[in-house]
């Protein structure tokens, strides 16, 4: 009887041990053919593969990547610590990369190539991250129903737009970064009053910029705040898409600009390959990287795509970009206080 118990137990232990062992075979497959590999965690996934393929063709360095949302990848990187397989973290917004840098998972990089290509206000002072492309969060309105759209973020709170406004929920980094920029630029009290005035307009919250554009086109709302590049995608499909962009606050701080970023991880297994990738993205790959998503290149000397250039020049609030992460927690708290969905 005792023996049988023991046999039973050892059998289960054995099986229990075999299962993970069987799984382990696939774990962290090493580079094929011994070639160099750079591992990327990316919160941005528009056309990223073609860009990486181009990089591989140019340098012979393979890129393997996993996608996810910015905050989740940030938390994963923090949890993995010294054992992370990631060489590079790429995010779709500045605040999350700054929070990652604050947590110590991004390493400072000194690169003349990067410092030359990327303007000072588009990279962190300590070199932990660099912007690769810019995009504006703008006011959009129906071309059919709106003659004089709001010209400033403050004007979006005008009671004239009550029941006619669409916004993205506060759970999304785009909303958080916009409010962080308002806090940085206007001070907390003014920002709170402004965001509260939006909420007073009883906005319809839609958790997708594409759907926000479609809602404006369909007449669900007349005015909304959304990222510029979605219009690029929609205009590619339908050049007559009935939504127009207004560059906000052109007489003031300028439109809220956020960036796609990249940084090298503190514990990168392949920091040299990672640096090659960043430098390539900031130079030879700049145009391809930005055009893939109808964004503005971080390097101002590189031309944006034609469809983007057609929207005309604008003044962007770039000074505040490196501080978005600093104000993000305050932004989240503010959004909660004013009852923003």
């Amino acid at each position, binding site marked *: *009887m*005792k*023996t*049988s*118990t*023991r*046999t*039973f*137990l050892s059998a*289960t232990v054995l099986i*229990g041990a075999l*299962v*993970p062992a*069987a*799984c*382990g075979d*696939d*774990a*962290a497959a090493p580079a094929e053919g011994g070639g160099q590999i750079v*591992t990327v965690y990316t919160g941005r*996934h528009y056309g*990223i*593969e073609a860009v990486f393929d181009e990089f591989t063709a140019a340098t012979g360095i393979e890129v*393997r990547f*996993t*996608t996810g*949302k910015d*905050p*989740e990848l*940030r*938390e*994963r990187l923090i*949890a*993995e*610590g010294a*054992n992370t*397989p990631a060489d590079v973290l790429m995010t779709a917004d500045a605040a999350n990369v700054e*929070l990652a840098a*604050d*947590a110590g998972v991004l390493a400072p990089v000194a690169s003349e190539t990067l410092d030359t290509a990327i303007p000072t206000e588009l990279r962190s002072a300590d070199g932990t991250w660099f912007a690769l492309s810019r995009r504006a969060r703008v006011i959009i309105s129906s071309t059919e129903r709106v003659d004089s759209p709001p010209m400033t973020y403050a004007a979006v709170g005008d009671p004239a737009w009550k029941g006619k406004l669409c916004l993205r*929920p*506060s*759970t999304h980094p785009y909303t*958080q970064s916009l409010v962080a920029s308002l806090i940085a630029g206007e001070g907390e009290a003014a920002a709170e009053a402004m965001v509260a005035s939006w909420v007073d307009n009883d906005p*319809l919250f839609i*958790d*997708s910029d*594409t*759907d926000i554009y479609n*809602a404006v086109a*369909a007449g*669900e709302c007349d005015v909304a705040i959304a990222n510029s590049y979605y219009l690029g995608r929609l205009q590619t499909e339908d050049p007559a898409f009935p939504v127009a962009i207004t560059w906000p606050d052109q007489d003031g701080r300028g439109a809220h600009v956020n960036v796609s970023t990249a940084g090298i991880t503190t514990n990168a297994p392949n920091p040299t390959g990672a640096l090659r990738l960043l430098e390539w993205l900031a130079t030879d790959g700049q145009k391809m990287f930005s055009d893939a998503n109808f964004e503005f290149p971080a390097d101002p000397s590189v031309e944006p795509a034609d469809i983007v250039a057609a929207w005309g020049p604008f003044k962007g609030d770039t000074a505040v970009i490196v501080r978005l992460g600093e104000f*993000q*927690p305050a932004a*989240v*708290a503010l959004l*909660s*206080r004013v*009852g923003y*969905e």
Partner: protein
Amino acid sequence: MTIGWRPGRGPGWALLVVVAVVMAAPVAVILWSITDPSTEVWRELWQTRLPGMIVDTVTLVTLVVTGTVIVGTGLAWLVSAYEFRGRRLLSWLLMTPIAIPGYVLGFVWLDTLQGPLGARAVRSIWLCAAVLVGSLYPYVYVFAWSAFREQSPRTVDVARSLGCSPFAAWWRVVVPMARPSIAAGAALVAMEVLTDVGTVRLFNVSTIADGVLRVWFGTGDRDAAAELAALLVVAAVSLIFVERALRGRARYTQAGARSATRARSVTGMRAAVVNVVGWGVLCIAVAVPVVRLVRWALRAQQLGQTETISGDLAFHVVSSLKVAGFATIACLVIGTTMVFIARERGRWGAALSRLASLGYAVPGPVVAIGVIVTLAAVDRREWWPGEVLLVGSLAGLVYAMVVRFLAIAHQGIGASVGKVTPAVVASARTLGAGRLRVATRVELPLARAGVIAAATLVAIDSLKELPVTLLLRPFGVEPLPVWVWQATSESLWVQASVPSLMIVAIGMPLVAALLWSVERGAEVVS
């Protein structure tokens, strides 16, 4: 039988403790933060969103549980009490929504109703609840159905002979006797609603589980998020107590049990009503969504969007099968081991089993981060040579799935093994069979249906699981839900349709296996 330590049972205890610790560790590391509460964040939450979150959570859980109990029990009764053309087919098909993830049903109905209702009206807690009822009622249905099947027709006959109308007989005799099963199904539903993060976000419903992610990912404040998660665990544990209380000590014995409830033939108007109700639910929960998905998928085919940047459809299917397969095997092995060891160890054994099942009460993303923290700590010790790391490995992902779904396997297997008549086991033992032999040759074969039911439930759940998969998938493994998520987060329904349909397609044989086992008397919960 004695409670507590006895010499000679050391290895069993040790194994049980190890399993419980390994399974509870990821939840424990997250909940640990409560020992050092950040009162400031807590106060701020309390003054702002927390009351709303609690209201939304309670409302949603109440609506969905009520809805699933009414729909699930009602349908189970229709297909067990009435005989009509197509009854058998209907009774099987009514189980199929379990294979459709809530987030898929959610985006299909969101898009379908957006036109007629308007984008504002469509984003409501009511529609969210309706969608969740549509995808979760099978949990109640399957338990109620198997409970009704096991009831003797004689009880109804007696009630009828005492002057009860058919409905009164059902309401006063049949339902009360099925109450333990219905309560168990409802508890599962409540747990799924408490931890849902995919569907609620679609409809702008702000639950506590959603709040955990909101706080964590919005501010990077893991401690504050963990405190919210702890609230969720408390809610889940109280739910379990409520369910136990509702169930009470109810153990109904039945005269001539195991002969299925006698079905009454219905024709004409009544048959029409029964059919309309049954097929109507099926239309809403399965037919309309599947038709829309198929139409989108055809469009995707035209546009050449039947693959992703990571690989073609077959690659994603293999990924999904691999993850669900390993997770199911692991859950079965560990669950069975726990059942056999724990039952001889009284209260402590039960407590350790419950500890190991804690992950079921915690939202997926929280489990995922807990697993990453735990595995990263193990990786840092470098217990094994070379470059083998658990974080980012398939083993890590499977581990997280087991943490999340072990409860289902453990409950199902435990209930079915518990049903094996003690006399059979005693006879085998008297005849000299060892414990292992009795377990493998007598008890498990007798409980086979229950084991299969548990396996299919785990497989279906791990096939649908989104947040854990998203956060933990290793390189080269891209299960279908990740593809769905990537497409739906950009509102690209056409792209999302192909992987969504594949999840449903893979789920269908599993549903069939589940039905097969339920028809053979599988107990799905204890």
